[in-house]
């Protein structure tokens, strides 16, 4: 059966996430990241940030809401029973700080069959309230046996 590729090029509605100090603290604590710029506003400002700053991989937290509708879209049609997260890239620009409103848009960049498996690649682009890009994510999901 040919892989359904109708969703290639499709974008989904943007989502906006307000970054907050307590969420940054929670994320940094789980990862065991101890730099005070993630916990203490004075330390963050002394280091030149406008407020408590998120660790780079906090990108996951504000990107997920935009990505979820793409992943679950029937037009994409991924079989979750045999899906694994195969690869991930993030490219960071501006740091994300508490108080920032980050808007993320997801699109499907490719759906391809390789050796009988389906490779579904999504891209998320996140910008802050000033319109500056914060991070670009490339999410590769592999569905076995398509």
């Amino acid at each position, binding site marked *: 059966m040919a892989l359904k590729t109708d969703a290639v090029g499709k974008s989904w509605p943007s989502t906006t996430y307000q970054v907050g100090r307590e*969420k940054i603290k929670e*994320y940094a604590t789980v*990862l065991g990241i101890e*730099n005070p710029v993630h916990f203490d506003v004075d330390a963050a400002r002394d280091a030149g940030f406008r407020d408590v700053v998120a*660790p780079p991989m906090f990108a*996951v937290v504000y990107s997920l809401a935009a990505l979820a509708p793409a992943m679950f879209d029937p037009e994409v049609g991924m079989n979750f029973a045999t899906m694994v*997260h195969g*690869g991930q890239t993030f*490219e960071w620009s501006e740091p994300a700080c508490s108080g920032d409103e980050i808007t993320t848009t997801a699109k499907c960049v490719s759906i391809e069959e390789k050796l009988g498996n389906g490779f579904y690649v999504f891209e998320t682009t996140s910008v802050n309230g000033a319109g500056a890009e914060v991070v670009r994510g490339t999410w590769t999901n592999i569905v076995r046996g398509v």
Partner: protein
Amino acid sequence: MADLKPGDAVPELRVTPDKYLPHRYAGASGDFNPIHVDREFAESVGLPSNILHGLYSMGVVAKAASQGLAHGDPTALKKLTVQFRGMGLPEQEIDVTGTVKEVDGNRVTVDLEARQGDNRIIRNAVAELEI
């Protein structure tokens, strides 16, 4: 840090996620997929137990690069790309190792991997940092 050169080792990072780490990561990230937080469900779909979130393991790799080469500066890491392969399990030590691949001015490219014993849970990771 200015004298980093290709072949230099990234300081090794070892961390053992405890039994409840996937639950705390689920709360922090918003990803409550039951394969990560429900052992019975995970076993019912053929997994050895509930498994670590791949993006948690990627977070540990990001930490190893930022902390090991840039004193934890959150603006140093410019790009990180990983492949998820073997499944990561709670209560087993993760060992992140890496090697400097290229130095171009203040831009440093490093190869990294994360393993639990012989199980390479993240491979072909490449980080680019400005330090």
